[in-house]
């Protein structure tokens, strides 16, 4: 295995096998992109069904039970199966390149994280075909969730548990990668902002997800093994779930938004041809947001009855987050100030983000005011707010990143005309859908309403909202057409199509599987820009050409995830028939067996030899 195989033409079967066993962060990024994109479409379809149901009063497009499944799965899918993996797609594609590393710290775990996420996501959706998906809301408040009949919520519990484990591994992986594997000269305060946000988001994952893990275990025990954590009649307490869920859930919001901030920072700096304004302040704002993110979870619970003292403390703490977020907005504006602003699709998304997210931030502060939240809470005002931050922030960021990083990931540029059409349709549709919802909420429409009555003054607003949703749907279809068109055309671009600033643009698009032939020497923030302004074409190497150590591919992560998937099904159905316990044992046996193999079988990787690298360079 010491010859270069990257350029060989491969058959379809061997490509599939390659992706099933890959531990290369760039291929895993593509896997995340495809899987996350698929779930994004699925969640979008669910959203459209919701908006069709609410297009007029007392509509009967779907039944109450099915509607509840739709809203639950829309939220769960979008957060856990679309936004998170798409963030991971860009983290995988870009972070190792931005810090000048040849791979991540734990390539095997990276692959395992992906497959766990995928099989967890599939398990979540199996419910649709076996008598009903989860129907207790994506927040799954107890005791509604613990008493929900059928297996829907069981799929939610096991599916999230499995995919959550994958996410946790991803988080640890990126923390270690960023700390241990930076290229010579890449100090912390020279790291691109996307890497910084990925770093802080990974730390948030590490400290937030275990709370969800525990919550899900307690729910699993209550539903499957008759424990009574959330059963008031047996001394249980349903509010515990809310605390555990939001101790995880609030940092989760920052896990999503911080990397999006990072993507915007890269794009705004690149297309203004300016260094990011107030880089140091941006870094500290990121860290501060991450830190404060853990102090504010109870602002989701102002109406639970925590008392005025707790409500006030959490209100003020939440408002404090507006300060570092404001710092970021102003730094972006002043990066643009005095720049040379090129407007293309990626930049359009970034520019559209600024006003949209500012509105989301405004309503965020308004929601933080506990005594005003008594009116907003659990209404369409909240729906409007979090879609303004999650769509206007995260989704805009992901779409911006798709256009910006596409050349690096695939070597082609997405069509600009179609891209701009997508942007404008989506942007207008987005504001149509969600702006009006602020008012619907205050006009008396609570969230998760299957129908609203006639004569409540809510008809027009809901109609506008539904029309907007369809505009976003059309925009998404055009994006898909764009992807297909660009892939078919397959016009290759060079290493640095955007005249960009950071290390990933110093190597070919797409990069060779070993990334950097020689690790680059980093001489400051925006290392590539520094070299370019000094008239060099690329980075100065920090080491002589030598052998490169690479990890081996492995099929174990896939099998291990299948094992957990089988065990998950077993756990769900042993409630009906104890024979299913055999599936638990088989599945866990497979998974633990894989772990044992991994632990005991030496996996030393292989070397690409210097001579082969030289030969390749000459070709």
């Amino acid at each position, binding site marked *: 295995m010491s010859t270069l195989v990257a350029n060989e033409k491969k058959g379809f079967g061997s490509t599939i096998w390659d992706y099933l066993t890959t531990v290369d962060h760039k291929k895993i990024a593509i896997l995340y992109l495809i899987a996350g994109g698929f779930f994004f479409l699925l969640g979008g379809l669910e959203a459209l069904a919701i908006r069709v149901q609410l297009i007029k009063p007392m509509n009967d497009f779907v039944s109450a039970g099915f509607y509840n499944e739709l809203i639950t799965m829309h939220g769960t899918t979008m957060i856990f199966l679309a936004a998170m993996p798409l963030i991971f797609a860009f983290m995988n594609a870009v972070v190792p390149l931005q810090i000048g590393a040849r791979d991540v710290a734990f390539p095997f775990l990276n692959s395992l994280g992906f497959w766990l996420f995928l099989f967890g996501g599939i398990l979540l959706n199996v419910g649709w075909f076996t008598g009903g998906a989860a129907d207790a809301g994506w927040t799954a408040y107890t005791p509604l969730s613990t008493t929900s009949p059928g297996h829907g919520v069981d799929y939610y519990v096991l599916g999230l548990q499995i995919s959550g484990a994958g996410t946790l591994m991803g988080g640890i992986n990126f923390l*270690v990668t960023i700390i241990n594997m930076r290229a010579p000269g890449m100090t912390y305060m020279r790291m691109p902002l996307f890497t910084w946000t990925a770093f802080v988001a990974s730390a948030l994952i590490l400290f937030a997800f275990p709370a969800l893990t525990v919550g899900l275990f307690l729910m699993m025990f209550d539903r499957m*093994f008759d424990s009574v954590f959330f059963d008031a009649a047996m001394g249980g307490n349903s509010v*515990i779930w809310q605390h555990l869920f939001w101790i995880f859930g609030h940092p989760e919001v920052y896990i999503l938004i911080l990397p999006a901030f990072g993507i915007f920072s890269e794009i705004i700096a690149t297309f203004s041809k300016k260094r990011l304004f107030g880089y140091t302040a941006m870094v500290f704002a990121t860290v501060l947001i991450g830190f404060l993110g853990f102090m504010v979870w109870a602002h989701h619970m102002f109406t639970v009855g925590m008392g005025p003292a707790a409500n006030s403390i959490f209100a003020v703490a939440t408002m404090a987050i507006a300060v570092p977020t404001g710092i970021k907005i102003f730094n972006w504006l002043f990066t643009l100030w005095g720049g040379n602003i090129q407007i293309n699709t990626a930049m359009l998304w970034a520019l559209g983000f600024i006003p949209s997210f500012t509105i989301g931030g405004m309503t965020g502060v308004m929601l933080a005011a506990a005594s005003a939240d008594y009116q907003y809470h659990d209404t369409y005002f909240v729906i409007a707010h979090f879609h303004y931050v999650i769509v206007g922030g995260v989704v805009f960021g992901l779409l911006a990143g798709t256009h910006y990083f596409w050349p690096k990931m695939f070597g082609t540029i997405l069509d600009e005309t179609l891209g701009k059409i997508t942007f404008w349709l989506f942007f207008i549709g987005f504001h149509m859908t969600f702006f009006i919802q602020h008012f619907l909420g205050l006009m008396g429409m609570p969230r998760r309403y299957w129908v609203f009555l006639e004569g409540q003054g809510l008809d027009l607003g809901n109609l506008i909202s539904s029309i907007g949703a369809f505009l976003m749907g059309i925009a998404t279809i055009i994006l898909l057409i764009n992807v297909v068109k660009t892939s078919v055309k397959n016009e290759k671009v060079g290493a640095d199509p955007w005249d960009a600033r950071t290390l990933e643009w110093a190597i070919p698009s797409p990069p060779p599987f070993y990334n950097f032939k020689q690790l680059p020497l980093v001489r400051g923030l925006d290392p590539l820009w520094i070299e370019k302004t000094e008239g060099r074409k690329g980075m100065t190497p920090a080491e002589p050409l030598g052998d490169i150590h690479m990890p081996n591919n492995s099929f174990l992560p896939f099998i291990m995830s299948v094992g957990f998937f089988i065990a998950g099904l077993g756990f769900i159905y042993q409630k009906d028939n104890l024979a299913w316990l055999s599936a638990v044992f088989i599945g866990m046996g497979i998974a633990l067996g894989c772990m044992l193999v991994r632990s005991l079988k030496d996996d030393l990787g292989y070397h690409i030899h210097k001579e082969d690298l030289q030969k390749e360079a000459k070709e």
Partner: protein
Amino acid sequence: MSEQDVLNPKHMPSNPEQATLEGKNKFLGFWFFLGGETVLFASLFGTYLALRDSTNGGASSQDLFGLELVFIMTMLLLTSSLTSVYAMYHMKNNDFKRMMIWLGITVALGLGFLGFEIYEFVHYIHDYEFTMRSSAFGSAFYTLVGFHGGHVVFGLSWIIALMFRNAKRGLNLYNAPKFYIASLYWHFIDVVWVFIFTVVYLMGVL
């Protein structure tokens, strides 16, 4: 130089677990993992504290817990932590045989702890009919202590597997990090038990 030579240098460095980049990554990554585990147990402790008086008219902590048994268990586990430190000490001195002996003692002590824990649970279930279904307190108790017990089982299996796998080939730079993080895991389990001893048992009896 082949892979084998790199991993079996003539003079083992004094920190064999961190001599390679892979070892350094494992070392750091495992510390992070333990950080996540800390949040996991903190959540379980929080849940337990919220529910420990919710006995639903059934057995309470005062009825159940006897400190004698728990004291023996604590001593076993604390001692096993110490013996695993000895094992790591010998690893750093490249004394494979002594390392294996001390790891063996660690495992024996851990198994002893586990035996007492199983006895304890059986005792509660049979003599008090106290299960995770009897009250929210029961659910919280068995989940918290059971999670810790599960960690002990996993840790023991891990150390035993490593001992068998490497019994013949001795120490090298590839397996040193594995031994080291397994012992880190074992220390973590021990620290968690100290909290369980305090929060569950001492505070439960008082």
